[in-house]
């Protein structure tokens, strides 16, 4: 608790630097990553983040110390080389894109590990910090690092904001962009540069192995909540910043703990929450709407049963007969009867159930949709009368009044369905 207060009251200026750094970095990479996710190029980020390791090592070897300028430049150059190589191979060979990306990723990363081992063997005392670039350590961010990493993050955010319409065009419809004369090739290059930069700035805090997660996961999680690009980008940034700060806090409390994996843990929790609980697209909400739908179908079927009773000259049905009509669904039937009574669609006299006036009208509507659809399938699609029942049984619950109108006029207000049963209209006497 003491740690918690100390960290989150930001009394310590070095913590302030770290937190500002991680927020900028998180927002920047989530912003780029969201576009990359929408562009279905999630793998490219992974390849780049692995591919910058040799550059980091070479930068370190040249400088002889952990100089951020050398390391960032080295990382950028090897990331750019990997990106360039993969698009060149894509254009000039028939290898598939995922094969190219997988090879580039492993070749560059393998080479990076070799260099890292050489540096370790050399016994350079500065070496200690270099391991951190694999899994990241946000706490080690210093003021001088912040200017470089934070500055680059701000640059990325600005660029994306200025080029928003160009990047949207690049993702949504690049051919159209070329047709109106925009230099789409150049815009792709700029986007790739931003992508590489966003990976590069994450190496200190998150590490090369997990940086791809910080690019893609925030956008993917935020996509569950919204269909608007502006909201999507902001939400992704918030997810990313929150996870970044929490991951950093863990590194602060447990000093040997790398930041990257914890940031990814928190991001994954947010992604899981989104996946489960987001309205409309979340699993839970889809489950609930399915339950509601099933309830409605049961209710509709019960109304139809009562209606068919009337067609067979029974003014209503005993409740036992209704239970029997839906075997093993007694609970649902009880529930439907309760709901229908509440909506005044049925009246219950002891255990005898009858349709009310509005109930009759609703029942007629459902039967009408069912029979109209059967007739449509039969007449327009030449489907035999004994094959039309099943789809009609499903569609009767979802056909809209507009569709009903359309069916009526197409079929010219028919009287009988393919089974020679009456198609009931609201004004028909019962």
């Amino acid at each position, binding site marked *: 608790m003491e740690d918690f207060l100390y960290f989150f009251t930001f009394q310590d200026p070095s913590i302030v630097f770290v937190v500002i750094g991680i927020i900028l970095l998180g927002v920047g990479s989530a912003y780029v990553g969201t576009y990359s996710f929408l562009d279905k190029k999630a793998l490219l980020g992974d390849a780049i983040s692995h591919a910058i390791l040799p550059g980091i090592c070479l930068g370190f070897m040249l400088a002889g110390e952990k100089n951020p300028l050398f390391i960032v430049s080295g990382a950028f150059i090897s990331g750019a080389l990997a990106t360039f190589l993969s698009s060149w191979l894509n254009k000039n060979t028939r290898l598939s894109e995922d094969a190219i990306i997988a090879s580039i990723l492993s070749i560059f990363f393998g080479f990076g590990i070799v260099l890292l081992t050489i540096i370790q063997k050399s016994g350079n005392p500065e070496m200690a910090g270099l391991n951190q670039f694999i899994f990241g350590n946000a706490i080690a961010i210093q003021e001088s690092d912040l200017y470089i990493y934070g500055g680059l993050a701000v640059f990325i955010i600005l660029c994306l904001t200025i080029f928003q319409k160009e990047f949207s*065009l690049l993702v949504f419809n690049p051919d159209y*962009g070329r047709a109106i004369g925009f230099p789409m090739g150049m815009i792709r290059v700029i986007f790739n540069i931003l992508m590489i930069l966003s990976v590069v700035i994450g190496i200190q805090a998150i590490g090369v192995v997990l940086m791809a997660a910080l690019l893609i996961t925030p956008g993917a999680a935020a996509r569950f909540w919204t*269909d608007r690009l502006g909201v999507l980008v902001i939400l992704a940034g918030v997810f990313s910043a929150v996870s970044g700060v929490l991951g950093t806090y863990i590194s602060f409390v447990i000093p040997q703990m790398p930041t990257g994996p914890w940031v990814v843990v928190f991001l994954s929790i947010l992604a899981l929450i989104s996946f489960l609980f987001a309205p409309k697209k979340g699993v839970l909400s889809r489950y609930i709407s399915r339950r509601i739908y099933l309830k409605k179908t049961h209710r509709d079927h019960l109304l139809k049963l009562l209606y068919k009773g009337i067609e067979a000259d029974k003014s209503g049905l005993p409740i036992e007969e209704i239970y029997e009509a839906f075997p093993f669904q007694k609970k649902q039937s009880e529930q439907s009867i309760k709901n229908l009574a509440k909506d005044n669609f049925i009246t219950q006299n002891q255990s005898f159930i009858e349709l009310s006036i509005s109930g009759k009208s609703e029942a007629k509507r459902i039967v009408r949709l069912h029979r109209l659809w059967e007739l449509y399938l039969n007449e327009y699609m030449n489907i035999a009368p004994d094959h039309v029942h099943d789809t009609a049984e499903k569609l009767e619950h979802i056909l809209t009044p507009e569709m009903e109108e359309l069916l009526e006029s197409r079929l010219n207000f028919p009287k009988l369905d393919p089974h020679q049963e009456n198609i009931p209209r609201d004004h028909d006497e019962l």
Partner: protein
Amino acid sequence: MITQVKSPILEIHDLTVSYDQSPVLWNVDLSLPSGKLIGILGPNGAGKSTLIKAIMGLVDPSGGYVKLFDKTLEEVRSRISYVPQRESVDWNFPASVLDVVMMGTYGKLGLFKRPGKKEKELSMESLEKVGMHGFANRQISELSGGQQQRVFIARSLAQNADLYLMDEPFAGVDMATETAIFELLQEMTAAGKTVIVVHHDIYSAVNYFDWFIMLNLHLVASGPKETVMTEDLLRKTYGGKLNLLTKVSDLIRQKEFNPLKN
């Protein structure tokens, strides 16, 4: 049966286009008059989209050239508007109808600048022309296929061009909308614009177009409706792929280089 015209708005000279070496368009050579509603007919895979893409400079020809308004494409790009095939984009992209239509104004707007009030008004007008103004703030993923198609047409109208190239703008559009949009296109050609449309339905095509291009890997016909709408030419266009051409295509694909490339 190829009718050439004087001072054409579009001239295609001996154009050959290949994908990965296999040619899909052979020596297309035609010229088109301005102010006409022009239909491109041909079976699936005939190279209709490829022809339009070659005109728009989206695929590089392996031979021949295209001239528009007697100039190169670069010089007259702002006067040309392109409607890609609906399936060529991912409609799950998070954007509103208005966002997409506004892309039609980007060409004149140029890089960096953001669309403002003027662009918004222009886009709303275009949406109104295709009867979609009520949907301006809808997400494009929520639209039906026919509505998405109309959004694409509105986007191209917002470009305010002189020559329109539309790739299957009527695929998945219902009859009433098709009629309404054809009337709109006819108004545009009456006002001097030229509209070239890839169309899949010969029967409705006959009613609307003034001029036809018939394509099946090579150019079968190009000319006014009266001269090219013959059973013989239609049979040549739709009567199966040309066996010889596809065989040669296969032959070329197996080579290490493209012998047609200049």
